[in-house]
């Protein structure tokens, strides 16, 4: 599998840079797929998510308390944009401090489920980000991905698994 990290120009701002991922030969990023999949059924929530990201990148930064942490493996920085108990959608992301977010996908969060493994869709999206996180950290160790400044990732931003 191949992942390319790209910057989402319309969502990035002076307080945080927002990235997402093209997977294999998809024409849309994981975040755009998330929006397409859920826009018809949950338009208000999609609006809310987009505006929250806009506020994060332009006003507040990616403050820790705006996210639900520990959604991935220990220390892999996979988290979810905080969703209230009565919200329907969950969006997974990787948060690098308050200045960089990498958006993945997500899905419908059924009220009946308690763990993400109970939803095939959420599990799939979450595990993609776990894999991406692992690849990023591996490349950071090898100095193939690095910080250009506190707001930007740089280097070889195309990640490939061995499969």
């Amino acid at each position, binding site marked *: 599998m191949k992942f390319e990290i790209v910057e989402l120009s319309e969502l990035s701002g002076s307080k945080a840079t927002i990235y997402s991922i093209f997977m294999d030969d998809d024409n849309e990023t994981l975040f755009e797929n998330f929006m397409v999949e859920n826009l018809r059924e949950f338009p208000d929530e999609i609006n*809310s998510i987009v505006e929250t990201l806009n506020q994060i990148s332009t006003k507040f930064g990616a403050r820790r308390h705006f996210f639900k942490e520990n959604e991935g493996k220990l220390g892999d920085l996979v988290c979810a944009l905080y969703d209230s108990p009565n919200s329907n959608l969950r969006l997974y992301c990787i948060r690098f401090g308050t200045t960089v977010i990498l958006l993945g996908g997500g899905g419908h969060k059924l009220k009946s489920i308690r763990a993400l493994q109970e939803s095939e869709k959420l599990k799939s999206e979450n595990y993609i980000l776990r894999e991406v996180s692992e690849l990023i950290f591996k490349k950071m160790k090898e100095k193939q991905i690095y910080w250009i400044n506190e707001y930007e990732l740089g280097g*070889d931003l195309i990640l490939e698994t061995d499969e």
Partner: protein
Amino acid sequence: MNRARKHTGVLISSIKEGIPEKTKENISKRMGRAAQIDDALRKRGFTNQEFAYMMGKKPSEISRWLSGTHNFTTETLWEIERVLNIQILTSSKPYEVHETDLKAYIVCEIEKAFEKYSK
């Protein structure tokens, strides 16, 4: 120096343009309130757990308050103002924080909470 490719998505642009101003304002206010409370907690050196104890709430409820998605009641905001000695509501009088009194105030509040919840 290789930067990430910039991607312009038509869908994101169109959604952004279509968000009602009232929605934007409400989200901004909720997030701003959460950030203000979090800043006050950090300034006073309180953890979320300690704040939860002082407010008589579970830590998970504090997480929800700070998430930027919560709609506070006026009474809750008054209580937060009192416990953290900050002004959140514009209708409240601004607090004058006297640093020498702040420690005594905090100790007193913790003692009161301990007495109340250890029964």
